[in-house]
């Protein structure tokens, strides 16, 4: 990070910068996704007029929403476990913060390059289950209890296909490190043709689809939004949350969508790197400093593409019933991802 700006930073200075960047990225990501997809794309898809009014082309709508949330009274239900109730949204948000730590955006642009990178990411992503369960239990409300238990069942069920879908990528890249996975995709060839590199979506399309489905479920978005189903259990574990605490859940959801889209693009779409022929054309080297500037932009475009897929499904599909949702995970996604692992392993050995 330091070399591209030609300044040498002490360890504590670099850490401070990284911390500041990560803590700013979470609200920024929530704002970007909220504006582009929740307001603009959704209202165009659904012929809605509302989100066009505040500011030019509706740009100030989210700011207005934020101010509205902050102004609201901080309420607690009568029988709530106050401490747990207070801390639950923060736990959910912390899991998002921890996910950002390993997401690489350039050859040097990563907060902490961990050898078991993807393993760490999948582990901390399931932290949010604890926050959701805490929120559901502490609210002392039957709807939120139902929502919390549904969420726990669902997040546990979909953790498995998510991990198994990543297996195929790890087998192909021969590393758990996210930077290693990016460079593996930039340098490998498919059937002797290396112009595009080997973005794993070409060979792991099944894995990509399973991963996206699992992400959808982890974010509790339609068609897997049983835990928050607002027309049945009126928001599930979020039902008693108002104002700023609700905003935390909201931000957590969107920032997690952003960072999961980032992980999906690192795993399957080649991350921050450009295809090799394009880099030859521009005369850039994979590890060169300029990639620290180009890389984030490339990654951002890929993230927006994956988020588009996530939100497109969200706005279109009705929701599963709880038993159908579990059956889909255990009877469809997990066998499919196991088969994917077997095929990938056999091909890896043979080719």
């Amino acid at each position, binding site marked *: 990070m330091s070399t591209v700006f030609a300044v040498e930073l002490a360890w504590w200075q670099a850490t401070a910068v990284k911390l500041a960047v990560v803590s700013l990225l979470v609200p920024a990501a929530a704002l970007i996704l909220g504006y582009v997809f929740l307001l603009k794309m959704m209202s165009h898809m*659904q012929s809605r007029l509302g989100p066009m009014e505040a500011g030019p082309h509706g740009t100030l709508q989210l700011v207005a929403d934020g101010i509205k949330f902050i102004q609201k009274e901080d309420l607690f239900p009568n029988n709530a476990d106050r401490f747990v109730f207070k801390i639950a949204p923060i736990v959910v948000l912390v899991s998002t913060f921890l996910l950002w730590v390993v997401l690489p955006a350039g050859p040097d642009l990563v907060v902490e390059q961990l050898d078991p990178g993807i393993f760490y990411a999948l582990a901390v992503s399931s932290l949010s289950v604890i926050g959701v369960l805490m929120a559901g239990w502490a609210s002392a409300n039957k709807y939120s209890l*139902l929502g919390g238990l549904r969420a726990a069942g669902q997040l546990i069920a979909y953790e498995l296909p998510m991990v198994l879908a990543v297996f195929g990528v790890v087998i192909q890249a021969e590393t758990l490190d996210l930077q290693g996975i990016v460079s593996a995709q930039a340098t490998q060839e498919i059937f002797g043709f290396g112009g595009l590199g080997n973005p794993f979506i070409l060979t792991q399309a099944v894995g990509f689809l399973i991963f996206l489905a699992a992400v959808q479920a982890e974010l509790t978005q339609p068609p897997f939004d049983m835990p928050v189903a607002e027309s049945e259990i009126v928001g599930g574990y979020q039902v008693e949350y108002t104002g700023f605490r609700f905003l935390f859940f909201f931000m957590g959801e969107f920032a997690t969508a952003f960072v999961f889209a980032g992980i999906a693009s690192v795993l399957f779409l080649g991350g921050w790197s450009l295809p090799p022929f394009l880099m030859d054309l521009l005369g850039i080297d994979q590890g060169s400093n300029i990639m620290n500037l180009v890389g984030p932009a490339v990654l951002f475009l890929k993230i927006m593409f994956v988020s588009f897929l996530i939100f497109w499904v969200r706005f279109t599909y009705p929701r599963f019933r709880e038993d159908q949702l579990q059956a889909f995970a255990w009877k469809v996604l997990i066998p499919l991802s196991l088969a994917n692992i077997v095929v990938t392993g056999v091909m890896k050995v043979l080719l």
Partner: protein
Amino acid sequence: MTTLDRRDQIAWITSQAAEARVNLEFESEGMTLNIGPQHPATHGTLRFVVQLDGEQVVACEPVMGYMHRGYEKLCEVRTYLQITTLINRIDWLGSFANEVPFILAAEKLMEIEAPPRAQWIRTILFEMSRIANIVLFLGEMGLQLGAITPTFFAFRDREFVLNQIEAVTGGRFHPNFDRIGGLKDDLPKGWVEDTKAVMKKIRVFCDEIEELLMGNEIFQARTRGIGIIPGQVAQQFGLTGANLRASGVDWDLRRDAPGPLAWPEVEWKVWTHPDGDSFARYWVRLQEVRESTLIIDQLLDGLPAGPIMAKVPRIIKVPEGEAWVSTENPLGEMGYYIISKGGLEPFRCKIRSASFSNVSVVPWVMRGVYVPDVITILASLYFILGDIDR
């Protein structure tokens, strides 16, 4: 333990353990969940007390009356013309259709017949309020199942129909347009062509919904085989309208008892579905909207000329007598039983609304389903709260 030998001991322990395991698996503490009075799935202030075992419903009891407005009593102190302003608020989504049976009952008592043109326009507006009502159902059911897009499509296209109703009556929700002996006004210029264009849009909307929602695997998995009401049970509970026709009973007052209205003059079909599940109720309503657009198109083509108002006394006094008239409203059979002792106001007015009877099947149909299915079934039975509490 001395009386038992070792083999008996083992058998006893095993049986105890098995029993304990069975208890663990199949017995849980029940939970009472109040769905409502304020809940998105109840379309207003209606409450369902649901006894749950896990997420399975043991019993479900509707509690009504949170917004009872005493219409039947209010009718006794108002003149016939004033009553129309009340009763189009009963089913607020298809409001013009509420006025028609009341006016027909009053006309029957006074032995007045509205001229044909008035009857045709009445029928057209009746069908338009049916479309405005059921189009919203088609979107709303998607919302209950978690798909938000169909709802907004429904609101968009309902607007066109309401605009057309507004162009004639001046009101979008509360037309107050029907009079004893005819209608208040004639159609405005150019209205016929505009309405035909709108009907085309509604048919496109039906195709969209068919692709977007009915063709969706999740939607089908959520609705097929859920909340089955066999035809006989439906009749026993007094279900009417699309809920009855979705159970395979071929019964439609528009065809079977049209009264003076213009339905027999045009070609159309009553749709039924043999399954009786939530999907069938949705399917029947979708077909009904399509059929209604076709009815309106035909009625517009053959609209007779002539006056829109019969000769009526300036001050309406209804002679002594009783009359019962019911029509096939968007939600089912809606009827008015008027007892008159002569004079300006009815002596007694009994309102039979469709939703009140349609909801009576809820405790029967809810046993053993899951909480999400409760929402599906409530959505597919389709009630308007004003139609339950009058």
